[in-house]
């Protein structure tokens, strides 16, 4: 028995594509770190730009003040001596610095020298001013040195500095990001991918295992791989046990199904209301169930049987009342249209919500044998007429009938001269004579009348539904006449006998059979005494 192989790879490939590109952890993590770093870097760069610019501005201004200090002594000399040439030399020197837009040296009442582009009045206020005192008297102010910073240049310098800083930040962010991404990929993603690929291509039933990703033997990934392997081993065991159990169950089920399908008895289950829920072919044939199983489902068992006296319902009631086994015989029509007898046994299915299981056996042969035996027991073997016991059964049945006005008649016939025939022609001739007599009686009486041989040469005719005694008298007269005719027995031997008949007539409900017979016997004896071959009517009781 080979258990079915199964693998995770059997799952439709759509759900298990290899994770690559934008969905990989490395990619997503890198992208997120880049995004985060980019945003932070941009915010820092943008936020720091004004600060850097103002710092740069202050720095350049400070540098300018220092430059002014270095030329101060010469400027003081120039302005003290009112020497325009030396003053021009100083301001021209200052102008060489790109951070200076305009420089001027003036004494108390006139400009001594100026260089650069003269500013408009608005910008003139931004100038740095240094008071120049006499070289010989610090307290004597002799002029001023005014320098206008080149703001455009300073701004440009600040921007350059700011951009440099931003570029450095960008390089830093990218480097850190790539480093983190590489570490994530190497440290986490590759291990997970190795594990995922191993798991994906795994043949569970083959008992293969996931490989521990290289370099992860002692960390969480390694533990994960070992746990997966342990889990796989358990799954493997469970699968094997499950397969074995299923195989056993399947074999058992097939066995029982074969028995069920091929049984000659009808096997079935009923629900609590007596409807068929499952059955085998034998029952379908016996009950002429529809060929299509679905059409048969829900049919009531009682409807498929000649269940005139609610026998099925009584059986179900008995089971509901706690009976373990109930059984009864029912007649039904099979698939061939024949009437058959089924012996049905029902017993409850434990714990199935009132379900009942049943067996239906064909007992037609037994029933027929019984019926035959019963019929034979009631017949006279020689003549085929009813015997005394048969007569009593018929009488009992007839007496039960609830007839309205009709009465009942009984004729007791005793043959005259039979003993003589028996003595002279032998028993066989006597037996043959009795058979012929029987046929002759049957031809005389009405079809509904019952004829019985109750003694050696004694016959009884039971006249059912007898409206008046005259009919009985009529029949008795015909019988006397008929039986007085000669008989031909044993190869043409002619014999003559006669019959004495006692007639009883009674209303319903009739008396006991023995009482009627006793009265009829008395009447017959009267007839014999009066000269035989005649009938007498018994007096009403």
């Amino acid at each position: 028995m080979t258990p079915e192989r199964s693998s995770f790879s059997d799952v439709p490939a759509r759900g298990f594509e290899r994770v690559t590109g934008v969905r990989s952890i490395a990619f997503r993590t890198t992208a997120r770190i880049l995004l985060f770093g980019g945003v932070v870097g941009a915010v820092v760069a943008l936020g720091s730009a004004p600060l850097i610019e103002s710092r740069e501005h202050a720095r350049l201004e400070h540098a300018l003040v220092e430059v002014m200090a270095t030329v101060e002594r010469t400027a003081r000399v120039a302005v003290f001596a009112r020497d325009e040439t030396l003053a021009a030399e100083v301001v021209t020197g200052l102008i060489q610095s790109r951070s200076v837009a305009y420089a001027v040296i003036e004494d108390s009442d006139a400009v001594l020298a100026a260089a650069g582009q003269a500013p408009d009045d608005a910008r003139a206020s931004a100038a740095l001013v240094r008071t120049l005192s006499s070289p010989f008297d610090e307290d004597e102010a002799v002029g001023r040195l005014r320098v206008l910073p080149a703001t455009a240049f300073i701004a440009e310098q600040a921007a350059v500095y700011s951009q440099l800083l931003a570029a450095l930040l960008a390089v830093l962010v990218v480097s850190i990001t790539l480093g983190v991404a590489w570490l994530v990929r190497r440290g986490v993603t590759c291990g997970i991918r190795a594990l995922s690929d191993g798991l994906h291509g795994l043949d569970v039933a083959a008992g293969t295992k996931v490989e521990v990703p290289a370099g992860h033997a002692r960390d969480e990934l390694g533990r994960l791989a070992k746990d997966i392997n342990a889990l796989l081993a358990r799954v493997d065991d469970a699968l094997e046990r499950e397969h074995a159990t299923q195989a056993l169950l399947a074999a058992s089920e097939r066995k029982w199904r074969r028995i069920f399908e091929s049984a000659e008895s009808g096997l079935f289950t009923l629900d609590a209301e007596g409807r068929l829920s499952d059955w085998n072919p034998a029952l379908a044939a016996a009950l002429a169930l529809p060929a299509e199983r679905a059409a048969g489902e829900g049919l009531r068992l009682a409807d498929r049987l000649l269940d005139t006296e609610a026998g099925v319902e009584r059986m179900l009631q008995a089971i509901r009342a706690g009976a373990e086994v109930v059984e009864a015989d029912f007649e039904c029509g099979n698939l061939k249209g024949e009437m058959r007898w089924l012996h049905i046994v029902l017993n409850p299915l434990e714990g199935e919500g009132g379900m009942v299981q049943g067996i239906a056996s064909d007992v037609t042969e037994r029933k027929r044998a019984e019926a035959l035996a019963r019929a034979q027991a009631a017949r006279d073997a020689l003549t085929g007429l009813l015997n005394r016991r048969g007569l009593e059964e018929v009488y009992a049945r007839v007496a039960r009938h609830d007839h309205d006005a009709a009465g009942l008649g009984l004729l007791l016939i005793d043959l005259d001269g039979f003993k003589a025939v028996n003595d002279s022609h032998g028993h066989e001739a006597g037996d043959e004579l009795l058979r012929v007599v029987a046929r002759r009686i049957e031809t005389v009486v009405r079809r509904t009348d019952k004829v019985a041989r109750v003694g050696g040469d004694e016959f009884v005719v039971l006249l059912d539904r007898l409206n008046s005694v005259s009919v009985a008298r009529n029949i008795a007269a015909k019988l006397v006449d008929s039986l007085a005719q000669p008989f031909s027995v044993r190869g043409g031997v002619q014999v003559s006998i006669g019959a004495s008949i006692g007639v009883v007539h009674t209303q319903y409900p009739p008396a006991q059979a023995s009482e009627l017979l006793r009265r009829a016997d008395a009447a017959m004896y009267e007839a014999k005494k009066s000269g035989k071959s005649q009938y007498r009517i018994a007096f009403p009781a």
Partner: protein
Amino acid sequence: MSARILLPAIFALLLSTQPVRAEVLVVIAHPDSPIGTLSREQATHLFLGRVKLLPSGARVKVVEVEPLRETFYRQLVRREIAEINAYWARLKFSGRTQPPHRVPDAAAAMALVASDPSAIAFVEGGSLDARARVLFRLDP
């Protein structure tokens, strides 16, 4: 002039000026000079080239007496002679402002002042005679 002769001469001079040093330096001019008197500031402006012309527009010829320069400038502006020389070195570079005319001794200064009404000079009080008028006394 060789240093062998000059050095003993300077040495002798330093020794000989010992009593002279105590004397007050005065700024002098021709008796007919348009300048009346001078304040210390005005004297400073004239000798250090800040003022080159008189209010009348006439040029002033400023004369220094070589041996008295150190004392004069120390007393006038409280500067060492090296500083004064550096000052003039800066101005000489431009060529616009000329340093004072320099004479070797007081006698030469007196003679120059006596001969040029636009000249001013400084001498020791003891060297003064009728040929010059005092414009400003430098009190030590």
